[in-house]
């Protein structure tokens, strides 16, 4: 099997390069289905332990048993990239998968969001995540599983709360309000921080301490890692490990439609040109392709979800046909799902694909809405804003150390689920070690404050 796919794989690569795909080399590896399933659950081949992954694992296992989901491949961008092929794949399927993976590899090498993330996180996320897992295993040895789990409860609950625009590596906020003559004289600054005659210092340097944080801070993981009053070193390391992995996951999340579509477009195209594949295997591969990009289950008239593979695939086909390959390569480098859908999901294409927007009321009635391309794009993109999480930011820290969070309910359109929010605050309070409060709005839209439940 390995030999056969290697032969086909090489030929597919030649075709890919001839078509202009450009990527870091990929290490392909065949793995058992059980391994594929775990990767799908954890997002990375070796990742930190947490009980919540166990729950996802069981769901995945059951879905798998019921035949609802089949994973052909997973791929991790990097230099080299890593791709895992399910051992259960037929040769035809694997040929398709290699082509698909090369599409991903090209995408992640050139897409702006991926490039930035790769530069920041490094090109070996698989190994880095394994290092994090080892580091956490060591913490468990030293601190005990219960303490480590508490920290992971908090850190993983905030997984999506990073600020990709401010980046992975960040400096601490300036301590004093800028504009002071002496503020860049580090020796004097440090000298004045020494204990001593405070009155004299105050008289000499009337400086204003900057508020903490100076602006609403979206990167909750960073803020807590940097400013929690009594965080221990190993706890900070866990927060930063989770945060680093989040920066890695962000482009995968924010470019899913584009990226899966791009890979599907290329596997279809490379396969069409792969005249070295015998007829019967070619048909098998085409069958696998149509399973992947089918709009929805065949026995249903309509689905209340859109298959991103299908949507992306159709959009790229239309772009290639109408705007040409040159422009397509540009788009794959510059856009993310937001601009991609807004700019290239045209009303005509949406109609051709039979996309629709629906409203679901609380009593369970689902109704198809009027056709409106902008509203449809919004409906597709709404779950993707802000890494898919509500906009919660640090508002301030009191003198007694109380951490104030604020939820931007205006941009999210409604308040937070109060019970869940309180539980999250409970997680946070255990690492912040001071009270934690959150402002949001209740069901009637009135401001309300949520506190962590009493321990």
């Amino acid at each position: 099997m390995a030999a056969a796919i290697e032969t086909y794989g090489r030929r597919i690569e030649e075709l890919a390069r001839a078509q202009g795909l450009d990527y870091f080399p990929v290490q392909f590896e065949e793995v058992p289905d059980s391994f594929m399933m775990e990767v799908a659950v954890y997002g990375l081949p070796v990742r930190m332990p947490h009980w919540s992954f166990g729950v996802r694992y069981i769901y995945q296992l059951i879905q798998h048993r019921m035949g609802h989901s089949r994973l052909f491949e997973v791929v991790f961008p990097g230099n080299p990239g890593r791709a895992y092929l399910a051992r259960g794949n037929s040769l035809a399927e694997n040929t398709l998968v290699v082509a698909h993976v090369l599409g991903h590899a090209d995408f992640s090498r050139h897409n702006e969001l991926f490039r930035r993330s790769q530069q920041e996180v490094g090109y070996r996320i698989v190994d880095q995540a394994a290092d994090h897992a080892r580091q956490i295993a060591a913490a468990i040895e030293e601190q005990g599983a219960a303490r480590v789990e508490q920290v992971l409860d908090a850190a993983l609950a905030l997984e999506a709360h990073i600020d990709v625009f401010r980046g992975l590596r960040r400096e601490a906020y300036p301590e004093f309000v800028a504009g002071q003559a002496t503020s860049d004289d580090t020796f004097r600054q440090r000298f004045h921080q020494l204990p001593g005659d405070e009155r004299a210092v105050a008289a000499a340097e009337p400086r204003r301490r900057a508020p903490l944080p100076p602006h609403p801070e979206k990167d909750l993981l960073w803020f807590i890692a940097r400013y929690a009053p009594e965080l221990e070193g190993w706890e900070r390391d866990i927060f930063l490990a989770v945060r680093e992995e989040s920066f890695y996951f962000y482009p995968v999340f924010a470019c899913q439609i584009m990226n899966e579509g791009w890979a599907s477009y290329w596997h279809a195209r490379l396969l069409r040109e792969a005249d070295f594949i015998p007829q019967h295997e070619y048909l098998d591969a085409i069958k696998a392709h149509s399973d992947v990009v089918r709009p929805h289950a065949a026995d249903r008239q309509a689905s209340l979800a859109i298959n991103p593979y299908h949507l992306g695939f159709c959009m790229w086909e239309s772009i290639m046909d109408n705007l040409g390959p040159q422009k397509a390569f540009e788009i794959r480098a510059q856009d993310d799902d937001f601009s991609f859908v807004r700019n290239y999901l045209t009303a005509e294409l949406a109609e051709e694909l039979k996309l629709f927007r629906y409203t679901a009321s609380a009593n369970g009635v689902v109704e198809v809405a009027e056709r409106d391309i902008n509203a449809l794009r919004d409906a597709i993109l709404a779950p993707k804003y802000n890494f898919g999480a509500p906009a919660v930011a640090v508002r301030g820290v009191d003198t007694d150390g109380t951490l104030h969070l604020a939820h931007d309910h205006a941009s999210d359109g409604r308040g937070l689920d109060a019970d869940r929010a309180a539980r999250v605050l409970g997680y946070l309070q255990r690492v912040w070690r001071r009270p934690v409060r959150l402002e949001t709005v209740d069901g009637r839209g009135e401001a309300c404050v949520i506190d962590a439940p009493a321990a």
Partner: protein
Amino acid sequence: MNLPSTFSGCSAGGEDWYELFSRGARDWLRHNEKLRRAVREKLPEVLGNAEMSGTDPGRTVRVPVRFLEHYRFRLREADEATGAGQGDVRPGDRLAQPGATGPGQDKGEGGDGEGGLQLVLELKVDDIVDWLWEELELPNLQPRAGATLDDEYQREGWSRRGVRSRLDRRRSMKESLKRRAVDPAGPAFTDEDLRFRQLVTRRQPATQAVVFFAMDVSSSMRDRDRQLAKTFFFWVVQGLRRQYSRLELVFVAHTVKAWEFPEAEFFQVRGSGGTVASSAFSLVSEIIAERYDPARYNVYFFYGSDGENFKDDHDAASAGLAGITALASFSGYVETPASEDRGLDTETAGLFREQADAGRPVDSYALTSSESVWAAIRAFFRQQAVAGAG
């Protein structure tokens, strides 16, 4: 720049590294462990429906539970959600709601959904009682000695003669080895090597008990009241089981008259009419006299009621109850008051208070909610532990 990609397959040893990490299973076990602990914290409600008379030490209760949720910030449910779909529909069409999962490639967050999955935890009743004991930090109880003694066979020593079933192979082998150490040429076994376990009879304090559960089943007892009383009774039995090797249960229901019932029917019994507690008390006294010689049995008596009793019955009930408390190791009164603020301030509670004031081992518990059941169980266990240790 254009390095070729590499392909590696299933053969060589290098691919086994991930077999070391069965991470999904590991984290799933951890989840289950946490779940068990969570269940532990709300045991009384969870276990209200279990049968209480089973004696199999390995018996279990099956508790349906939900998966634990790792909480995240989430928006509250929208009054009207909107989403995007695909298919052959026209504006204004109404669609069937659920099962709205997308096609096969969903790599989505399996973790946060309900998905219709339910987990059933199987808990050993004995373990649960252990947890309770641990939580209450109670001492281990010695079997409570009764007034009289039972004859019981016990192992003691070895003999050279005996029936085959008592042959102690290990001991016999040892003898054989000793002999052959001296005489290596001897046969593997001789009759002289054989050792048999010996039994002697010993007089033992009686460790049996009978527990009476009497309940007012007149129309004023609601289903909720019965459930609370049943939960309490269940735990009483589990607690007593630790102290007595043999435990018998007797169920008595009453309105103006009293009847003995099998356990299975007891909690379903529904009567109508008034409440005459003395009828139950005298039936219990009769049963004790007929079947449970107080010299051989430790008697426990529990009575559940909403506290109402006919005024005219006061003297008869008082006398009947005094007759029982005089014999019983412990008597408990479980009141399920009609309103929460009125606990143990009733006619029946007064009857039991008289007995407690007279120095008899009597205690009363008001059950208004599942939390108060919990509190009552703790109080009962503590009381028993003190009595058992003293």
